[in-house]
């Protein structure tokens, strides 16, 4: 029997994750012990405080990067610091949207349409459980891109998914739709994580190690059973591609984006993409980099199908949230280009793209939360006609976000797309660049069509109004707008910071 050695955890490197988990636990305690009156403000301030503290800690450890914590299970290198910073930034903006309790049911356990539900709304109760749930999801998202072995990766995947399944079902209006989206998200998510785990088992069987470094060595050595390796890559990729919503595994995306409360959709769409692509970059750039001949052709095909499918189907959408969902599928395809590029430029470009896309997504969904009628949000595109005349402010911001999605110069989307395409070009993959540019052009068509509807069509008089945003919503939307424009006009400081920081520990 070998003696048990105390594991060295390097708490300072794990601190951002631990702070967020601590905040979430305090939130749970508040739910149990604090009175109903002080809960909303207490939860909100704890959530913001935790996220800002964690962001400060990420900033403080940025130079200590290239270390592993928890005995090699967690890699705190440049890439994970950048991913964690982006997740936290997006989470802060997302929580500012979630704080508008108008979108959430007051009592999740009550039956839709029951007297219990009416009473809970009339008495002004608020659904404060959403804050600890958000923090738990954020903790998973911080851990996911930093995971350096298969166990941590699986636990982090579930940690970020499980709270999101619940959050999808908490809408105040159209609750059946919301609960249905939660059920779909949950069943398909659990299905895909089973695939993920099965793939992990085969990668372990191939290499005899659960750590990415061990898998990498086994791939370079090439002595293992190749069938295990191929099965492992295939099944693991299914789990990851599901999370990012790439095409054969995208079926949940439109339904969940539409059914979930819009602030949750914003947070989920933006932050999950950052976390999942962060993890994907790590796996494919480190553990499986030398097996690229096995996965690159398939991934290229998936990226091409994803870009084209997302762009084409988005054209046919009549619902703003569904349109944004299909646009997020197309963006998953663009981001896959960065994974396939498999060079330093691809890594930098992907991280920049993730930050830019995430912030823009928060802003776009933030505007969607503001367009309402007496029964709640209006997401039918027809009823958005003439929004530019009725509320120039909201319509202008939404137009800016759409132009950023389309990748028009002077917005962050252009810099992101440009750098990701040039990284792919550098890696010699010219075909995918052509498809990428073509599908950007197709995508630009439907983004600009929405702008035309908003500004050049006559307003319809059916009670659709733009509500006056709360301070926090205004903060989220204007910050997202400022970042989107700033990253488009002066990308150099951020790009340089990413280029000098981003590296993956092998």
């Amino acid at each position: 029997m070998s003696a048990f050695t105390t594991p060295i955890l390097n708490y300072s490197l794990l601190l951002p994750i631990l702070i967020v988990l601590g905040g979430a636990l305090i939130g749970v305690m508040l739910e149990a012990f604090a009175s109903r009156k002080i809960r909303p403000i207490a939860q909100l301030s704890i959530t913001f405080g935790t996220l800002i503290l964690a962001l400060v800690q990420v900033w403080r450890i940025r130079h200590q990067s290239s270390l592993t914590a928890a005995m090699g299970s967690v890699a705190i290198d440049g890439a994970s610091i950048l991913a964690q910073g982006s997740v936290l930034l997006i989470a802060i903006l997302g929580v500012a949207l979630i704080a508008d309790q108008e979108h959430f049911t007051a009592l999740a356990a009550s039956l839709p349409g029951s007297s219990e539900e009416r009473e809970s709304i009339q008495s002004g109760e608020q659904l404060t459980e959403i804050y600890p749930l958000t923090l738990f999801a954020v903790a998973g998202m911080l851990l996911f891109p930093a995971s350096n072995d298969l166990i941590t990766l699986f636990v982090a995947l579930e940690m970020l998914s499980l709270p999101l399944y619940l959050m999808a079902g908490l809408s105040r209006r159209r609750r059946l739709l919301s609960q249905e989206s939660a059920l779909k998200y949950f069943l398909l998510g659990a299905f895909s994580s089973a695939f993920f785990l099965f793939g992990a088992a085969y990668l372990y069987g191939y290499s005899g190690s659960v750590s990415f470094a061990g898998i990498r060595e086994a791939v370079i050595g090439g002595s293992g059973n190749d069938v295990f390796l191929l099965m492992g890559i295939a099944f693991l990729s299914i789990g990851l591609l599901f999370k990012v919503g790439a095409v054969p595994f995208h079926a949940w995306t439109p339904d969940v984006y539409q059914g979930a409360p819009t602030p949750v959709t914003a947070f989920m769409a933006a932050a999950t993409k950052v976390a999942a692509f962060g993890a994907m970059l790590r796996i494919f750039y480190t553990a499986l980099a030398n097996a690229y001949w096995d996965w690159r052709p398939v991934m290229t095909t998936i990226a091409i199908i994803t870009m084209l499918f997302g762009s084409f189907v988005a054209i046919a959408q009549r619902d703003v949230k569904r349109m944004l969902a299909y646009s997020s599928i197309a963006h998953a395809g663009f981001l896959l280009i960065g994974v396939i590029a498999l060079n330093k430029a691809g890594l930098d470009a992907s991280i920049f793209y993730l930050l830019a896309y995430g912030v823009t997504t928060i802003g776009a969904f933030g505007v969607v939360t503001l367009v309402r009628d007496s029964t709640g949000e209006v997401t039918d595109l027809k009823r958005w006609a003439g929004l530019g005349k009725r509320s120039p402010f909201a319509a202008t911001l939404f137009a800016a976000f759409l132009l950023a999605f389309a990748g028009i110069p002077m917005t962050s989307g252009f810099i992101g797309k440009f750098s990701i395409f040039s990284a792919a070009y550098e890696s010699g993959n010219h075909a995918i660049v052509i498809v990428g540019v073509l599908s950007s052009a197709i995508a630009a068509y439907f983004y600009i069509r929405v702008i035309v509807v908003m500004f050049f069509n006559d307003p319809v008089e059916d009670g659709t109004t733009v509500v006056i945003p709360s301070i926090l919503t205004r903060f989220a939307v204007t910050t997202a707008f400022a970042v989107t424009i700033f990253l488009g006009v002066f990308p150099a400081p951020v790009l340089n910071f990413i280029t000098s920081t981003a590296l993956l520990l092998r």
Partner: protein
Amino acid sequence: MNAANYLYVSALLFTIGAIGVVVRRNAIVVFMCVELMLNAANLSFVTFARINGNLEGQVVAFFTMVVAACEVVVGLAIIVTIYRSRRSASVDDASLLKR
């Protein structure tokens, strides 16, 4: 006994689970099929731990059990809520989003 046989059993269980998820209509049964798939993955992990001669795979199996338990908590909460509001746990009835 040849360890590869356990891999065949695990692959078979995984396939049964995956087919079950696709063809069954009751959300609870679909969910049980997912659990079957997770346990099939567990069996693979333990078998590979035996083949590779280290303990890491067995450790993963423990983690998977805990995660699966958490998944049950969240999953049953969602399924029960759906059942209470529409008196059915069929995944075919939940089709408002398709229209």
